[in-house]
C-alpha cells in the first residue's frame, strides 16, 4: 500500500494520516513527519515559492518510495509534497511509513526525508522584503545520503 502525491493545494495532515493508517494492513507501527514552511533567512520572509519538474517529480518520488519500501520491509509509505506559493507556517510536505515494528518505520521515514531533500526535483525560493533568493542546497543534505 502506498500513496505518492505532488500537488499545489493544501492538505489535512490528520485526515491523510488517518486514511493511511486505516489502509495499511499488518502494521504494528506508523511514523509520520510533517514539514512546515520556515523562515530560513532573517525573519522577514513573506512567502516560499516551490518550483518543481512536472513529469519527473511524481516518478522520482515513486522511485524513492519504492526503495524505502524494499529496504525497510514497509507495509506502506505515504509521501505528499506541495509546490507553488506558501506562507510561513504552512504545511509543505509530509511522509508516513508503516511497518511491523517501530524501528523500520522510523528508519524508513528518515530515509524518505534524506532522499527527498536532495533527489526529488524541487527548488525553493524565498521571498522577503529585500527581494527573492533561491535557497541553496546544504552539503549536509548530500552527505546525509552516505549513511544509507
Amino acid at each position: 500500500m502506498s500513496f505518492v502525491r505532488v500537488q499545489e493545494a493544501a492538505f489535512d495532515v490528520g485526515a491523510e494520516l488517518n486514511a493511511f493508517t486505516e489502509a495499511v494492513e499488518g502494521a504494528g507501527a506508523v511514523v509520520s513527519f510533517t514539514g512546515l514552511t520556515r523562515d530560513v533567512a532573517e525573519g522577514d520572509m513573506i512567502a516560499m515559492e516551490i518550483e518543481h519538474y512536472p513529469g519527473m517529480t511524481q516518478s522520482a518520488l515513486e522511485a524513492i518510495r519504492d526503495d524505502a519500501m524494499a529496504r525497510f520491509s514497509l507495509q506502506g509509505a505515504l509521501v505528499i509534497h506541495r509546490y507553488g506559493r506558501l506562507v510561513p507556517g504552512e504545511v509543505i510536505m509530509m511522509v508516513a511509513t508503516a511497518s511491523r515494528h517501530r524501528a523500520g518505520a522510523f528508519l524508513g521515514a528518515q530515509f524518505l526525508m534524506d532522499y527527498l531533500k536532495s533527489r526529488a526535483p524541487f527548488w525553493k525560493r524565498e521571498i522577503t522584503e529585500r527581494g527573492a533568493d533561491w535557497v541553496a542546497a546544504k552539503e549536509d543534505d548530500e552527505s546525509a545520503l552516505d549513511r544509507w
Partner: protein
Amino acid sequence: MDLRYFAWLRERIGTGHEVVETEARTVAELIEELKARSESHAFALSDLKSVRAAVDQRLVDFDASLEAAREVALFPPMTGG
C-alpha cells in the same frame, strides 16, 4: 532535442525550454555546446558543481549518454523536503 531549465538556471539562461540540434554524445558535451550559445548560457553553466542533469526525467551524471535521449534538463542541486 528538448532542453529544460529550472530554478536559477532557468532565470540566468532566460528561458525554461528550448529546442536544439546537437551532435553531442554525452551531457558533458552538450553543456560545452550550450556554453557557446550565449553569454547567459555561459554564465549559468560556469560552475558545474552547482549543476545537476536529468535525461528523459532520470537523474544522471555528466558522462551519461544522449543516445536516443529526447529531453535533457539542467538545474541546481535540489532542495525538497
